[in-house]
């Protein structure tokens, strides 16, 4: 329920809003000029795509309490749908392709969300694996999806928005950033609306939600639809802005788990948590492997380092869950509160619940 309280506070100028604006200014005004191609291409673009995917899953799992293990299937649907829009409807502008891809992903998501009407918990979670395996199979099996490429691989077109081409690392970053910012704002708005409250009611107590008049069927399917819409768009970014050549095998179960990790570690039912978690999952492995190579690279071969890194990441995941079950974001919040508390001690105004 902290989210509701926080959203109430955030009307008006709050430290949170100031921070957000400052971050946006930095993301648009600073990063494109100082970030190297490596930082933009290998860190920030995948970070943005994964953060958006995690946000999508968070709507479903964190807010509405419906667990899905099939996220990367919807990434794939988004990517392949956008590709096909682009190939088959050439007059369609890229932006429209992106939205259309999101809609296709939403439709597929609703279909695979149907079991949620009867199943819950792990039964539902495992049933979403059907989406995972079915989508991968279909994309590999039917050549139509990849425009009959013999290997099922699709090449992304250049990113063109209203006549401008964003083919450099900076361009792709800026496009991703814009898409993610817009999608995030829309998601935040939705969560503040009645629909968002319905999601939370559904998660907290399904029967009680029904009693107070939440339309269960519609809310559940809506959760699947909206969530898959966002994940589908993230898939477009993943395929078009980040990898630029994708094959169905890339959208495997490990990716689904990764996205689930992001929201659990970042903080379920938190928009900021999705971003924090994504940063953690994208940057930490690279940081560890760079650090390992720099410190111990002469002593151990890359295989040993990689295995040790895997162990460290696994241990960190378990460790964070033990130490902070509500995710990194609550750690950050507590830290921020403490700082703010110290700064504003003379005033009698505790801003956070």
């Amino acid at each position, binding site marked *: 329920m902290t989210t509701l309280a926080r959203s109430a506070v955030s009307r008006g100028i709050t430290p949170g809003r100031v921070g957000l604006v400052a971050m946006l200014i930095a993301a648009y005004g600073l990063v494109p000029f100082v970030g190297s191609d490596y930082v933009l291409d290998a860190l920030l673009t995948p970070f943005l795509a994964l953060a958006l995917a995690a946000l999508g899953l968070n709507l479903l799992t964190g807010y509405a309490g419906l667990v899905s293990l099939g996220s990367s299937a919807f990434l794939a649907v988004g990517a392949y749908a956008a590709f096909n829009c682009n190939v088959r409807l050439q007059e369609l502008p890229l932006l429209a392709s992106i939205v259309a891809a999101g809609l296709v992903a939403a439709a597929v998501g609703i279909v695979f969300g149907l079991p949620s009407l*009867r*199943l819950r918990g*792990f*039964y539902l979670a495992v*049933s979403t694996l059907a989406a995972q395996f079915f989508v991968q199979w279909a994309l590999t099996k039917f050549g139509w999806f990849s425009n009959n490429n013999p290997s099922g691989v699709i090449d992304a077109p250049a990113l063109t928005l209203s006549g401008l081409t964003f083919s450099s690392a900076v361009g792709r970053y800026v496009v991703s950033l814009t898409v993610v910012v817009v999608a995030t704002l829309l998601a935040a708005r939705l969560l503040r609306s009645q629909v968002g409250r319905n999601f939370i009611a559904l998660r907290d107590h399904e029967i009680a939600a029904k009693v107070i008049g939440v339309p269960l069927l519609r809310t559940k399917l809506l959760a699947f639809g909206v969530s898959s819409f966002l994940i589908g768009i993230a898939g477009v970014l993943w395929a078009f802005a980040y990898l630029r050549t994708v094959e169905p095998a890339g959208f495997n179960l490990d990716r689904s788990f990764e996205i689930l990790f992001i929201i659990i570690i970042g903080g379920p039912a938190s928009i900021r948590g999705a971003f924090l978690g994504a940063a953690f999952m994208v940057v930490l492995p690279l940081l560890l492997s760079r650090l390992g190579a720099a410190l111990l690279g002469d002593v151990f071969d890359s295989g040993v380092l990689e295995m040790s890194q*895997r162990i460290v990441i696994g*241990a960190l995941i378990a460790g964070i869950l033990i130490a902070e079950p509500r995710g990194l974001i609550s750690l950050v919040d507590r830290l921020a509160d403490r700082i703010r508390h110290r700064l504003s001690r003379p005033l009698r105004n505790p801003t956070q619940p």
Partner: protein
Amino acid sequence: MFEFQFFVEVLVGGLLSGVMYSLVAIGFVLIYKTSGVLNFAQGAMLLFAALTFVSLVERGVPFWFAIGATLVVMVALGVAVERVVLRPLVNQSPMTLFMATLGLSYVIEGVAQLLWGTQVHGLDLGIDDVPFEVGGVLISQFDLFAAATAGALVAGFALFFRHTRTGLAFRAVADDQFAALAVGLRLSRVWAAVWTAAGTVALVAGLLWGARLGVQYSLSLVVLKALPVLMLGGFDSVAGAIVGGLLIGAIEKLAEIYVGPLFGGGIEAWAAYVVALTFLLLRPSGLFGHKLVERV
């Protein structure tokens, strides 16, 4: 070959494969039943057991001694996991626990490969896999052996849970954790016993699957075969795991042979999930469902 004979052959092959799925599923059920944890690290544990065993044998350790040593290692691992990871997470949501076991599987896989290397090993249990023929139907000796082993394992557990104090405590905890605590059962001992049992199952499943696939990283992927079984049979029912395994195994093979060609084949990967799902939608209480809470 007669069409009916072929059908029987597919069916028998499927049932025997199903036993192998059940074997993995039982490991999940044991832990889920007592602690409500869907232990995804079961696959990693299976890999760890097989890799430890095969590495010991390759270093000249005698067969039975290696089995004993691996069992000790697996029990130690199980108990350590329970102590270090799951106990601090008591009372967290099932999803949090699930994620923790996912993290754990990273750790176990990493340690296994760090200790024993990434080489692919063959594993020979000394059972000839030359098939024999019954009325024109080929039957695999190895699969029969695997089925017998699984049967013995389940029978062993059944006796254990019925006739020992720990076993009774186990059933009490499975029925109602709080009531069990209230009457003074020591949960830690029960959980240690459960993880020991799960470690044993991991070892047996690891050896049998290892003999079929070779001992290598992909071994941990066999959990994906167990998940639809769990869905069909229920996460908390040993009997469900067995019957579910047989059903999934048989239906999966029959579907691939008779329905697969309509789609150009290769449907096995998702057919099992669709079957389990359809069944649950028609009969939400599952095969042996007594608890309806989770399935509404």
